């Protein structure tokens, strides 16, 4: 279809839940108040690493107003974890705590104050163990083991993959660079703190309302944790006030609320404090990286070898996937004929890391894009032109066997280069800053560029199965209204709206005519959850399929009535008819009545599962995606040489969205990503001191305000990808990726200081300027990499450049 054929798609419509959110109508989990409800609270460990010797809850139980107090002994002795390969968590720890913030007991009481007082009356006997607070410490102390499982002492995962002969590629290169980078961990900081309300009813069933991004995975895990059948559990995702990956695991507060409700017979709410959200975490992994890349004189990449060390924190979470993600997406952007990747995730006594926006990929993206900037300088190339020359080829495979369909990155680079005035600024200001070392300290301007790619949905589920990844049931009746049931979870990204737009487009009605019922495991077909930028594509495809089926049945009924061919009918403006006899068209409501009379109840399903494209090697399941989005970004900033402060002026960002189903929503996602990238680049850090989180509050954990956010100029590039719903790709994560390296590159351009570490602080910049003044290399960043033996690399032939199918066969199409 071309743009002109659409009536809803491509319109900048407000989200269907916009009004409710703006006027405060939306009921988040903490806004639920049920009759007789009790208030729960978790007692969390004050120790980073300790054996639990005893827990005495008797004084807490005696406190008036306390309904129940539980410990791990009140739950089945099973460990769980979001990934089948990392079952290492307990809701309430029984033998050992592994971080400050691990839950050890839970209370339900008449109000929050009483629950809090009761927690203080619980006496836990701990035997403290030494804590390991960094990658280096965890590797240096194999005798102190945080977990008993994994790929070595304190090594959760150790992977090594090689696609082709990188050493030969380096030998044949004109330039080979080796660089070391560090990306500090940071957290999601959603506005809504996690909350859950559980209600066990006298019929032995259980309902959980929770601010979760993945009701389905929670629903899958609860039966084992609570020892009851899945069929008796209902999980409803309450509207989520921001997720960004922080609400993707089953959590202690959810499980404790369920058990407390079962024991008290009352609904139980547990709403976490902001500090607790910092302990729940599952945020960006701190990653140390070593990257070696070969180049020809012209700037082509000959081969790349990347090593990553991830600080995983105390538990597995999504960490095995995160480890792969630090390696597997890099080859999707540029021609990279051979590639070697080694990665290791290490356990430490910190809150567990997991899937924050961009899951595992912003860190290696920072490394690669900063290294390209350095290489371009050495080769005497314009870094924008260099990137534009070496783009991956559409419809080919990468070295690591990923299938790439459309690529709009060339156009993205062109757009930001043009709009930002890159050529003049980059050349002009560079000569100015080159001479700056003798000039008096002042403010210097710079520009920097970077590009990136991200996946539109993981090609495999987190547990092996061949069922749909997303399902939609669409119902229409004589009211003329259409109801969509889908397990997808709106975390602010707008998936509920997408579920209204797409059927409305197919059926020629208005989004307002569509009622969306999301994320309720008793009501809605399964959708795996809001992660990996999968929802618009997957539930969108399922919704289009279901809407197509409904449309077919309606068309048949109308065709009979009007005595025309069903294929000749158009659906638009809430009418169904033949375009050149539009005066005879029936209203949509009349059309539905005819169809209901002819067909019976009108309910149709749509199912989606991604094409099966996993590389045929161990580990090949992480990275494949139906299609990849691309982004390019130019940042203009100035650096104050006296204070080291960075002021951002403008960000130009172009994003290959495939098709903008709603440009307003896409721009919102792009701007949000840019904003989050700025925070990661310049101030956010989940850092620890004396074994404790240094700043578990929104005042002290520094995240940018609107005053630090520059003008963001967004350009949407449409490539109409055959894999996506009406050609759409993802928007929620990819645009974050180029921002941190573009900022680092712009800082170098402004003052000649290379910051190979984020967040880039004023202190770091002053240190770099000081080095420069002394005539030393003005680089600030990690100096060393750990002594660590990766396992023998799995040797796989490089698939680079092989032609790839436009669209592979998708399941559930007939």
């Amino acid at each position, binding site marked *: 279809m071309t743009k002109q054929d659409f009536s809803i798609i491509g319109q900048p419509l407000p989200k269907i839940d916009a009004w409710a959110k703006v006027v405060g109508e939306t009921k988040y989990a903490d806004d639920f108040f049920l009759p007789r409800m009790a208030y729960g609270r978790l007692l969390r460990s004050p120790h980073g690493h300790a054996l639990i010797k005893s827990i005495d809850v008797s004084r807490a139980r005696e406190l008036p107003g306390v309904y129940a107090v539980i410990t791990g002994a009140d739950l089945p002795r099973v460990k769980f974890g979001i990934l089948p390969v990392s079952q290492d968590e307990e809701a309430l720890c029984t033998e050992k705590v592994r971080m400050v913030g691990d839950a050890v007991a839970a209370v339900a009481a008449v109000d929050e104050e009483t629950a809090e007082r009761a927690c203080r009356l619980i006496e836990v006997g701990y035997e403290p163990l030494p804590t390991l607070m960094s990658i280096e410490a965890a590797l240096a102390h194999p005798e102190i083991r945080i977990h008993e499982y994994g790929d070595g002492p304190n090594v959760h995962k150790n992977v090594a993959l090689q696609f082709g002969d990188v050493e030969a590629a380096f030998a044949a290169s004109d330039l080979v660079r080796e660089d070391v980078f560090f990306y500090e961990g940071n957290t999601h900081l959603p506005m809504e703190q996690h909350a859950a309300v559980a209600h066990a009813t006298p019929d032995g069933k259980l309902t959980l309302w929770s601010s979760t991004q993945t009701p389905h995975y929670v629903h899958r895990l609860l039966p084992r944790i609570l020892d009851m059948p899945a069929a008796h559990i209902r999980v409803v995702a309450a509207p989520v006030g921001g997720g960004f990956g922080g609400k993707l695991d089953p959590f202690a507060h959810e499980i404790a609320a369920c058990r407390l409700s079962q024991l008290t017979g009352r609904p139980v709410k547990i709403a976490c404090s902001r500090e607790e959200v910092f302990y729940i975490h599952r945020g960006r992994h701190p990653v140390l990286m070593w990257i070696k890349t070969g180049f020809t004189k012209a700037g082509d990449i000959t081969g790349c070898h990347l090593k990553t060390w991830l600080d995983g924190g105390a538990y597995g979470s999504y960490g095995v996937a995160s480890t792969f993600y630090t390696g597997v997406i890099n080859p999707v952007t540029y021609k990279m004929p051979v590639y070697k990747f080694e990665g290791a995730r290490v356990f430490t006594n910190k809150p567990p890391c997991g899937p924050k926006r961009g899951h595992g990929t912003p860190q290696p993206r920072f490394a690669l894009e900063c290294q390209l900037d350095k290489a371009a300088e050495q080769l005497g190339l314009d870094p924008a032109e260099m990137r534009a020359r070496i783009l991956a080829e559409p419809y080919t495979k990468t070295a690591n066997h990923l299938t790439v369909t459309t690529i709009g990155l060339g156009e993205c680079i062109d757009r930001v280069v043009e709009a930002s005035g890159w050529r003049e600024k980059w050349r002009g200001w560079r000569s100015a800053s080159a001479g700056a070392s003798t000039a008096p300290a002042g403010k210097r301007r710079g520009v920097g560029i970077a590009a990136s790619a991200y996946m539109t949905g993981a090609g495999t589920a987190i547990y092996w199965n061949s069922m749909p990844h997303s399902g939609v049931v669409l119902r229409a009746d004589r009211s003329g209204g259409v109801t969509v049931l889908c397990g997808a979870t709106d975390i602010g990204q707008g998936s509920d709206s997408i579920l209204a737009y797409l059927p409305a487009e197919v059926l020629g009605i208005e989004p307002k005519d569509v009622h969306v019922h999301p994320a309720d495991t008793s009501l809605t077909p399964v959708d795996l959850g809001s992660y990996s930028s999968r929802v618009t594509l997957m539930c969108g495809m399922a919704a289009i399929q279901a809407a197509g089926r409904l449309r077919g049945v309606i068309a048949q009924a109308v065709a009979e009535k009007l005595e025309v061919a069903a294929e000749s009918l158009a659906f638009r403006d809430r009418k169904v008819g033949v375009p050149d006899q539009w005066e005879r068209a029936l209203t949509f409501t009349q059309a539905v009545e005819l169809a209901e009379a002819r067909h019976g109840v009108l309910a149709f399903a749509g199912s989606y599962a991604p094409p099966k494209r996993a590389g045929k090697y161990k580990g090949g399941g992480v990275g494949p995606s139906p299609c990849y989005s691309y982004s390019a970004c130019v940042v203009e900033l100035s650096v104050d040489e006296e204070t080291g402060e960075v002021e951002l002026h403008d960000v130009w960002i172009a994003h290959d969205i495939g098709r903008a189903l709603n440009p307003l929503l896409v721009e919102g996602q792009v701007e949000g990503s840019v904003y989050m990238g700025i925070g990661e680049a310049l101030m956010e850090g989940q850092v620890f001191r004396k074994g404790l989180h240094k700043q*578990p509050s929104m005042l002290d954990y*520094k995240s940018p*305000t609107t*005053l*630090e956010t520059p003008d963001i100029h967004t350009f949407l590039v449409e490539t109409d990808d055959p894999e996506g719903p009406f050609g759409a790709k993802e928007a929620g994560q990819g645009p974050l990726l180029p921002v941190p390296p573009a900022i680092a590159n712009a800082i170098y351009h402004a003052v000649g200081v290379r910051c190979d570490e984020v967040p880039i602080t004023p202190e770091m910049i002053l240190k770099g300027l000081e080095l420069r003044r002394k005539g030393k290399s003005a680089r600030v960043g990690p100096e060393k990499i750990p002594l660590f033996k990766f396992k023998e690399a799995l040797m796989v032939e490089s698939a680079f450049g092989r032609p790839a199918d436009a669209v592979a066969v998708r399941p559930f199409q007939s």
Partner: protein
Amino acid sequence: MMRLPPFTYLAPRTLHAAATALAEHGADAMPVAGGTDLFPNMKRRQFEPKVLVGLRGIRELTGIRGRGREGMTLGAGTTLSAVAAHPEIVAHYGALATAAGLVSSPQLRNMGTLGGNVCVDTRCNYYNQSHEWRKAIGFCMKKDGDICLVAPGSSRCWAVSSSDTAPVLWSLGARVRLVGASGERVVPLEALYRDDGIQYLTKQPGELVADIVLPPADGWTSAYLKLRRRGSFDFPVLGVAVALRMDGDRVGEARIVLGAVASQPRPAPDAAAALAGERLTPELITRVADLAAGPSKPLDNTDFTHPYRKKMTRVFVARALRALAGLPGGGRAAEEVA
């Protein structure tokens, strides 16, 4: 959510009634004005008063009187937003309007008062944490414990004076009127402070700050610069207040007071003395800035590294002086405006 501990709230209508209530309840009671400092601290159990004496209903505490020429009197209950926007203050006591307008965020300035800002608790990032956090790391002497985590072995607390307006008021020569159950007194603002993180105020617990009295502003100009990570929301981790009285093109009298580098505002008298009788040349400014950095002795208990805060003292003093001298390179870029 973090919950407040239980307390009784009294709402007196007069200063006298408030002072009497405070006297009656002694150590169990605390005054509260906007509550923007005290309530978060109570949630973290840094204070657990059984009685709160609310000052918001007391008329005599609000209002801005007088003119720059003859001096002004600001009621302690005046909100920071009102101070920042008052034309007479903007015109004659510029640094005060700037400082009040840079406190925290617009919402908090609408609630927070000048009196509360002058009395705001000292801060330390080992102390401004929840009860559970402080228990986990080990309580320090400012609340519930007996050691200092920033300077182990120290017998005193080094929590940081974090008021934006206090260094400015000091540099302007302000006085405060204190009212207690048994009478009132007026003292220079600097006499209100003591360099101790715990007992940072010299006033009696039962005494209320009633007014801030500003001397006539004639001939004086002033500037305030604030270091913090973000353009809003954040407390100062360095404040530089400079007030100058010019005699023609020479400095007649100067005062430089630093904020957030000690447990009280810290004057830089040597630097101020070096300015007297001199022209504000770039060379002099550099020398004065070096001198002013001397008294700046931050410790590692706020945002940013303490060597950086020390280094920035010099830069900020120079910038404030350049701004007042009309030389290029004064002030900072994007500052929040009220």
